[in-house]
């Protein structure tokens, strides 16, 4: 059986090779691994080996001849695997190294160049030139212009759009073309986008108003800080563990003494102030770790103008003379009318009164304001009685104490001496 040796692929690019020289002749015995020829590729001269042992049967390429990769160049008859005895060759001696002559060492001369101050920066302007030709716009702007049917290039040439154009420019142009100033203002108020309106015609504010009515669009009003405060306050109030006491006061004496100057409100403040002084727990507020008992009665009274509700505080009103109380009440009424109540003036109360009697409300219950221990909701007079609903914080005032307070109020309301002494 013959083992064929082919022209090998010696490099990726090799397609044919030249046989440089044969190292064996026909009839020679070869061992596995023996070099049989030298071949030249496109890159180098390499040795070709026989990978099997045997006898050289034929050499089918001559020295100097070319053959394509894969062509058979020799045939080895694969015989027995017995090893061929090698002739012992002489072990050659290693050649000694050649002595080098020592040369003189010269110091390295390197010229120190002056510092280059001209930086080889690419002159962007020179390279880029004027890239802002008509029609230049950001991709987003182009998309928007296409949507609106706007010709960017023409408008830029007519100086109606800037170069380059951005979405804000496109939008502004579009809006000024199709919407009146008033219409845009209305849109802005109602937080509406111009995109809701069909393209191609002009819109006036009347159109906008119609649209708003038709689609029932609410007018968004941003929350003022006051509104936010109120929300916080009443939310906090709702968290408190409260209970109610429903009762009423005899109105006879109150009506008798109330006049233009010393109004019902005046007398109510006096009444509650006195009752609070008699019931310590109604002068108590709850801190984080302790109850605070206040020496004076500080009462806040709900007062409203057309747009807002205020709770100005009558600080230490038990110590106020009639005149002082009258002045304070008058001043607060004025402040409330003008909406000019300072936040300082609304701090420091322990209890509050809210009166809706003048509106004809028979009875209601109010929500505790801020850190107060309770609030009294006053209703309209009916059959000689004015309704009073107490909302009390059960952490501070228990039912018994609440009832006792209510009793005091009722007693005072029917006590002529109280009214006389107060004058």
């Amino acid at each position: 059986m013959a083992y064929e040796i082919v022209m090998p692929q010696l490099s990726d690019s090799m397609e044919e090779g030249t046989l440089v020289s044969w190292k064996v002749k026909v009839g020679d015995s070869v061992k596995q691994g023996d070099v049989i020829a030298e071949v030249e590729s496109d890159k180098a001269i390499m040795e070709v080996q026989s990978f099997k042992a045997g006898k050289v049967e034929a050499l089918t390429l001559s020295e100097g001849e070319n053959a394509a990769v894969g062509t058979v160049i020799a045939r080895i008859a694969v015989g027995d695997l017995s090893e061929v005895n090698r002739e012992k060759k002489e072990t050659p001696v290693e050649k000694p190294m050649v002595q080098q002559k020592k040369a003189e060492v010269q110091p390295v001369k390197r010229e120190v160049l002056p510092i280059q101050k001209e930086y080889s920066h690419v002159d962007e302007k020179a390279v880029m030139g004027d890239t802002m030709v008509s029609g230049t716009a950001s991709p987003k702007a182009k998309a928007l212009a296409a949507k609106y049917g706007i010709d960017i290039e023409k408008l830029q040439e007519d100086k109606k759009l800037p170069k380059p154009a951005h979405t804000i420019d496109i939008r502004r142009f579009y809006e000024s073309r199709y919407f009146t100033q008033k219409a845009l203002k209305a849109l802005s108020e109602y937080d509406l986008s111009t995109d809701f309106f069909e393209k191609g015609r002009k819109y006036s504010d009347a159109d906008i108003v119609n649209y708003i009515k038709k689609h029932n669009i609410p007018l968004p009003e941003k929350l003022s800080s006051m509104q936010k405060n109120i929300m916080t306050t009443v939310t906090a109030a709702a968290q408190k563990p409260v209970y109610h006491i429903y009762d009423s006061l005899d109105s006879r004496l109150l009506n008798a003494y109330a006049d233009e100057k010393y109004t019902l409100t005046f007398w109510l403040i006096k009444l509650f102030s006195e009752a609070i002084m008699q019931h310590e727990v109604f002068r108590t507020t709850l801190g984080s770790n302790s109850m605070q008992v206040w020496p004076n009665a500080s009462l806040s009274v709900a007062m409203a103008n057309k747009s807002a509700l205020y709770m100005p505080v009558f600080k230490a009103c038990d110590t106020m003379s009639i005149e002082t109380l009258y002045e304070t009440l008058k001043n607060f009424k004025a402040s409330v009318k003008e909406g000019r109540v300072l936040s300082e003036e609304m701090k420091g109360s322990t209890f509050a009164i809210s009166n809706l009697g003048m509106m004809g409300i028979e009875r209601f219950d109010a929500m505790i304001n801020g850190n107060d221990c309770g609030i009294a909701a006053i209703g309209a007079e009916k059959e000689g009685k004015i309704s009073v609903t107490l909302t009390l914080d059960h952490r501070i005032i228990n039912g018994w104490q609440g009832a006792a307070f209510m009793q005091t109020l009722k007693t005072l309301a029917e006590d002529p001496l109280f009214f006389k002494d107060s004058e």
Partner: protein
Amino acid sequence: MMDKSIIEEIYMLMVLGRQFEYAAKEHYMAGDISGFLHLDIGQEALSVAAMKAFDHGDVFTTYREHVMAIARGIEPKAVMAELFGKSTGVSKGQGGSMHLFDPSHFFYGGDAIVGGHLPNAVGCAYARKFQESEQGVLALFGDGASNGGAFFESLNIASAWKLPLLFLCENNQYAIGTKITRVAPFLEQRKKAEPYMRTMEVDGNDALAVYETIREAQSYIQKGHGPIFVEAMTYRYEGHSVSDPATYRSAEEVEIWKHKDPIERMRKVLQERFDYGTSDLEAINKKAQERVDEALVFAKESPEAGVEILYDHVFKEVNHVVS
């Protein structure tokens, strides 16, 4: 005295190794294998005997690893298939000749960066010591690696921390075309290790001597004495790789070494000491050749995975690969 069956196995693997390497070269020339192919022909004694002797530990070696991998127990079929880039290869065709990884045989390649695996071997030895395992680590490298920074760092750390690491220097005197004595102050690389650890020397072409030496070295490191440096002098018949015509060595020098051929010497041992006859030896040769032929057939007929596995195994967990 070594067991006869081990000696026969070593001989068989050496013969198989050489046949395998020639077959690989042949198929490289035929275009089935590409890239770099570093052949171990002439160094079989060292490759096989060291692997058989170091039976209880991790092995880190160089890119000239085919015979070592086979001696370690990896199927020649899988190695040849890897060279052919097939999906049945040791590394599914992802690594090639220089990257044969098989943790189940405690064999970790295969590093294309000269000396790059030495710090890895040191780290693995640390892990074995940390785990209080009996296992040590064998790091095989060439004379070329012993001039690099990683080599010296590894000697230093292994001896500072007394790690169970067997440094095995395969000194075949050439790093591609550069003779070791041109770039190192002396031929014997173990001299560099002398300040750090015990050193041993062995004739790399004497398989039995290699076996005994490595056994002793393995025992030494397993007993916790720290690292050890074994230098084996040997020679490769082929160039550094298949694309190297090896013109930097004289034909005479190659002849000198071929006189010390390791397979020849083993054959003599079997004949003279164990009374193996010609037919016994032929039978072994034949069996070896059969396994190589088998491996070739397997490699040729194995399927080749395509682009569909290009992004496989970039990561083990979530494959966050953006193409």
